[in-house]
């Protein structure tokens, strides 16, 4: 007999109601969005009247999850960046040099004179030539190896951070694989964090910042004008170093001498400085940076080092009073003041030819910290808000027309049963939006296509059932039995057909990216909700109708 337990009925209705409630905020999109922004602002401490009013636009007890609009619908910028890991290896090697120099020089009698082949750091190697006593290689390796540290990571247990070996008369130091792995992970985490902080400082809504694969970062920021603008925000590495000045040069191609480099001045055209390649202190040891004004009232940036940075800075300034000292930002010399006195306490001020805006920006960049490595942009997309709006309008129109056409077609084909299927179809799309809102999924243009496709295909389950009922009616078992058999026998086809489609949706989700993923999500959810509405909701509707009317014959 046709019957469904009361608790099951309640469960089905409950599920439908929850789905509808979750979908409802999308009908009042901009209102709920304003409310959500206000709630976030208030949580963040901005408890103003304007925010209070905005919050009151939507009652707090109702769900407020929205379907996020993808970049192709809202407009914004998308970047796929690759982190230049070699930069990190290089700076590791550069930082190692003073240490190596110290231990080798302490044993000068045995090792003899040494010379740093500083060009090799570009290949991630630290090469030191034993000029006078190449035979002392073994001893040199021993000395350098004493500097090694164990690698701190799960997979790298038992290995050291670098290896030293001899190559002719050159001592070669390279990072171990385990250390590279650990460095990569650290670098990625650091880069993600810094990019996130920089974008947050600008304060845009819901940026996506994700790691992809070993060395890539996906950045999507809705509402931003262009990818170039986004690159300006995150692309400046703000690598701050303090380096000893060896001298000046008139052009960039002069020979700087071993262990030195030539960098241009930031604001003076044609001025180049010869600097020692190993920095005294780097921006990584900064704890704070603020825009301020110097004693002449010009915009400048004050900074504060942490303990070890402050100590190194203090020792260096004490020992080099009267020598010039370069403040280098992203391979350009901001200024090269002469050290007037010992600077203790680790605080200082950077003066230069800044505008107020520039000094503020520099402080932000310094505060957020330097990106540990440069970024290469492999992919960039900018979608203007007009195009997004056009796509939304077109998508809405198409969905409405598709919806209406399918509803009419079903009604014409199945009459009353068509009405049941149509109710299920409407609930289906609503619940789909509910699910998408619940998990905060992103709706893209292909995602809208996925919804439209679901509208077309969702009726499939009902069509299967109705056709089956028609067939069962022919064998004249009475309407109740025919309906029951229809559902029973159509089930395996419905399950198989939908599982196979679901498999492709999952593969699409796993392998795809961006808009394609958005399509996979709507397709997958569409399958879940359409099976639910076809099997449970229409069945319940039919059963309720059947119980009331008790028809002797039915026409499907």
């Amino acid at each position, binding site marked *: 007999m046709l019957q469904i337990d009361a608790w099951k009925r309640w469960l089905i209705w409950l599920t439908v109601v929850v789905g509808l409630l979750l979908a409802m905020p999308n009908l009042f999109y901009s209102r709920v969005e304003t409310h959500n922004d206000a709630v976030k602002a208030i949580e963040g401490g901005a408890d103003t009247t304007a925010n209070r009013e905005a919050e009151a636009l939507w009652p707090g007890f109702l769900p407020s999850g929205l379907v996020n609009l993808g970049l192709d619908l809202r407009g914004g910028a998308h970047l796929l960046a690759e982190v230049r890991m070699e930069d990190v290896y290089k700076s590791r090697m550069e930082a190692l040099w003073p240490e190596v120099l110290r231990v080798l020089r302490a044993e000068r009698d045995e090792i003899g004179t040494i010379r740093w082949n500083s060009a090799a750091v570009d290949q991630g190697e630290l090469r030191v030539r034993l000029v006078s006593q190449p035979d002392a290689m073994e001893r040199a390796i021993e000395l350098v190896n004493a500097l090694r540290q164990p690698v701190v990571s799960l997979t790298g247990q038992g290995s050291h951070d670098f290896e030293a070996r001899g190559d002719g008369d050159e001592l070669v130091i390279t990072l171990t694989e385990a250390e590279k792995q650990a460095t990569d992970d650290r670098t990625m985490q650091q880069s993600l964090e810094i990019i996130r902080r920089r974008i947050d400082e600008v304060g845009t809504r819901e940026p996506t910042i994700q790691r992809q694969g070993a060395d890539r970062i996906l950045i999507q920021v809705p509402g931003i004008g262009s990818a170039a603008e986004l690159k300006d925000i995150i692309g400046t590495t703000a690598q701050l170093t303090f380096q000893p000045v060896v001298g000046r040069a008139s052009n960039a191609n002069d020979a700087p001498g071993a262990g030195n480099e030539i960098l241009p001045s930031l604001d003076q055209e044609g001025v180049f400085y010869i600097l020692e390649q190993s920095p005294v202190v780097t921006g990584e040891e900064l704890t704070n940076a603020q825009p301020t004004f110097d004693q002449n009232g010009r915009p400048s940036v004050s900074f504060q080092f942490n303990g070890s940075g402050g100590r190194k800075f203090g020792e260096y300034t004490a020992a080099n009073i009267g020598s010039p000292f370069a403040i280098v930002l992203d391979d350009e010399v901001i200024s090269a003041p002469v050290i007037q006195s010992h600077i203790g306490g680790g605080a200082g001020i950077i003066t230069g030819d800044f505008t107020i805006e520039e000094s503020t920006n520099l402080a932000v960049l310094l505060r957020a910290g330097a990106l540990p490595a440069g970024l290469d942009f492999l992919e960039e997309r900018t979608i203007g808000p007009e195009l997004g709006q056009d796509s939304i309008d077109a998508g809405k129109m198409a969905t409405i027309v598709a919806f209406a056409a399918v509803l009419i077609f079903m009604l014409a084909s199945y009459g009353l049963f068509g009405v049941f299927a149509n109710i299920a179809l409407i609930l289906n799309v609503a619940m789909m939006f509910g699910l998408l809102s619940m998990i905060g999924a992103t709706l893209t243009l292909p995602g809208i*296509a996925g919804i439209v496709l679901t509208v077309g295909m969702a009726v499939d389950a009902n069509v299967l059932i109705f056709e089956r009922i028609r067939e069962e009616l022919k064998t004249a078992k009475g309407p109740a039995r025919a309906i029951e058999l229809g559902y029973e026998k159509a089930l395996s086809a419905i399950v198989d057909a939908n599982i*196979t489609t679901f498999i*492709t949706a999952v593969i699409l989700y796993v392998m795809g990216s961006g808009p394609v993923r958005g399509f996979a999500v709507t397709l997958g959810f569409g399958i879940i909700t359409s099976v639910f509405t076809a099997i449970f909701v229409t069945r319940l509707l039919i059963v309720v109708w059947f119980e009331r009317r008790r028809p002797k014959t039915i026409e499907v």
Partner: protein
Amino acid sequence: MRLRLVKDDLNLDYFKRATIWLGISGVLVVIALISFFMQGLNYGIDFRGGTTIRTETSTPVDVGEYRSALDALGMGDVVISEVFDPSFRDDQNVAMVRIGAQDGEEAVSTEVIESAEAALAEVAPDIRFVSVESVGPKVSGELIQTASLAVALAIGAVLIYIWLRFEWQFAVGAVVALVHDVALTIGIFSELQIKFDLAIIAALLTIVGYSLNDTVVVFDRVRENLIKYKSKDLKEVLNMSINETMSRTIMTSLTTLIALIALFVLGGDVIRGFVFAMIWGVFVGTYSSIFVASTFLVKLGVKRDWTKPDEPGPAGTQFGDVDA
């Protein structure tokens, strides 16, 4: 009065000319492959790298002017085309500019985009760049790999699923039909030189899903009828099953087509290629589940005598009746 598209007592023989149908399909697949290998696909920047700029102006687009402005920059392969769509406003003139990947560049080069935009702004002062997309060659190579892998994986996964739920002959039939659909879709994209980008891969996978949906529904009925009519010839059972499910096949294909056509006409030019692929897929998918998948099943034959001890369960493996 109900709309009935298929007679209740439909009784067609789908295998009378099986060889002809298979022949036609075979020839079409071969043509598709030839087209694919001879003239290739019109890959979008997702797969070949480069930059596309979508421009909007209120004055009509002069493609020649755009071209001479960009040719002066010496950027190599530049394609400019005007875009038309019924949804555009009267003063909305849209053009797509595609600039090939620059030699020796792994990453995206901002200068190329900036200089192209500047050159276009010279000839059309009110120009707006509503979307700018740029993909470096490094990524595009990987995207091709991932996309091919995705299609192969999808086909492999359903092969296994159908094998578990039915018999290996069903799985082979279904997969041959899928490969047929995918080949024909790639073929028509190559033949008509429609832009082939990442979204089309999504469409291909959807076609795989849709075609399979159809095939599985027929096969499900075949499985059922094989049990019911143990003595009937396989061909007869297949014909009967296809006839019984024909009404559903037509209904579902039509509702899906109605929805897709609405999207094709009204959904804007951005996703038109994507929707076209799916409409095409509904046609070939529906055709192939009957004339390719089922015909293959007839050719392969299905083991009917289930009294032999080495085979568990009737007309299906032990997983066959899990949800039935």
